[in-house]
């Protein structure tokens, strides 16, 4: 028997470990739609990375960062709200990716696997990317933790207290871009946000501190990967969506069982 299953598990767990703490910040900062927009632009990154002959992951990181910066610039005008801008960016970049792909007759990209993930096809090279990218992101996030938390609670107060809010925010966007680029393989562009926010949402009721919530989100994420893969094999369902359904199930179960905490 092929060892695709251990590779899938290892890859999924690598992504879930980082997605947990990063996702808690996305939940706290109400940036779910922002994450979704960056993820949508991922396909364009894949195409550009392939065309330019670098590699898809770097293409995704670069494209996500460009979109994030474009948003920062666009937010300076005052006649369109941020969610409108995000909607424009998300769907424009996704469509641009698909249109560009249609022009490139020589390039073959497995569209479905990028859109919905192909965790069972993860190979050894992917694993290096996933663990390398995620360990890097976790390390940066650990260093960024205090200032990012302070800026999340109150940005101006943090600035007065000496937090370099703008660089911290840019670094946070870079982390989201990195995690999206490596999580694509697992759940795909269209479902990445779920891996960021559902475990974090499930963790909220049981957490008494920000760090506790981040840790729990990681654990819930890993459990969702395991459960989802098992369900996918058991009932022969698509793996990425099965992982998302597993995360949602954990969230629902967590919402109904009583917790010790008052809040």
């Amino acid at each position: 028997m092929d060892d695709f299953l251990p590779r899938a598990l290892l890859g999924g767990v690598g992504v879930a470990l980082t997605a947990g703490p990063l996702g808690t910040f996305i939940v706290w900062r109400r940036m779910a739609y922002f994450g979704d927009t960056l993820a949508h632009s991922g396909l364009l990154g894949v195409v550009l990375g392939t065309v330019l002959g670098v590699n898809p992951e770097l293409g995704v990181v670069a494209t996500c960062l460009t979109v994030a910066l474009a948003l920062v610039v666009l937010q300076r005008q005052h006649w369109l709200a941020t969610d409108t801008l995000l909607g424009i960016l998300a769907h424009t970049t996704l469509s641009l990716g698909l249109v560009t792909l249609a022009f490139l007759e020589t390039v073959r990209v497995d569209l479905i696997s990028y859109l919905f993930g192909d965790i069972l096809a993860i190979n050894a090279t992917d694993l290096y990317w996933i663990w390398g990218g995620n360990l890097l992101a976790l390390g940066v996030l650990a260093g960024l933790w205090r200032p990012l938390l302070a800026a999340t609670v109150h940005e101006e107060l943090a600035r007065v207290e000496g937090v370099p809010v703008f660089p911290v925010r840019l670094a946070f966007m870079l982390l989201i871009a990195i995690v999206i680029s490596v999580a694509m393989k697992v759940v795909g562009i269209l479902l990445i946000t779920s891996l960021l926010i559902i475990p974090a949402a499930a963790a909220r009721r049981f957490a008494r501190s920000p760090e506790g919530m981040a840790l729990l989100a990681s654990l819930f994420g890993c459990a969702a990967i395991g459960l989802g893969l098992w369900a996918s094999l058991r009932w022969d369902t698509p793996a990425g969506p099965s992982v998302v359904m597993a995360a949602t199930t954990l969230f629902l179960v967590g919402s109904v069982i009583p917790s010790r905490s008052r809040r």
Partner: protein
Amino acid sequence: MPAEPLLTVENVNFAIRGNPILLDVDLRVTAGEIVALIGPNGAGKSTLVRIVLGLLHPDSGQVRLKPELRVGYMPQRLTVADTLPLTVQRFVTLGTPAPRERVRTALTEVGAAHVLDAPVQAISGGELQRVLLARALLREPDLLVLDEPIQGVDLNGQYELYDLISGLRRQRGCGILIVSHELHLVMAATDHVICLNRHVCCSGHPDQVARDPAYLQLFGIEGVRTLAIYHHHHNHRHDLHGAVVAAEHDRDG
């Protein structure tokens, strides 16, 4: 020789998309002094505070802080998302890492030691104001900047907070810049009042300001209630945009 001011603002102008918000504003705070910034909504108080804090840059004019000045800031409104599990202790130490005992001491100083371990979302508005003050105090500030510190606090709590703030000045000798529209309280506790309505309408000791025609002009009936005994004459009016226009006839308010 007078002490070097902690903060000097000179001739500051600020406009948003062509709309003047601040016109030639001056402001000074020295150590041990409580300066109150009062003015109606939209007078530019918060903008001036944000310029003082370095959050905004003036279009022209100067903001000078004494070198190595430590600023404690209490923002006007703060709501922590319910999604973030955060105790008061963690909240207070977000700006300045400190051991639990120091946090307890700071909270005791502002009369909020009992909420040390409570979730920050679960405490009352008055408690949150005290917690914010404790967070500012933990920085051992030379200058405290308090933006509407008694907003949303009941009347009793307001007097308590003002007592607390004037006590801090005595004990710590720090300068305090306080923004408010609660005139009666501000007038009682401060050394210097600046009446702002885009430009500095009048400023000086509370008694002086209270006699100033511009003060009663600015605060209308509320100002009259607060200082009913003062008779006054206008020296200017404000048009709909807040710009100063000369009064044609002096009238009584």
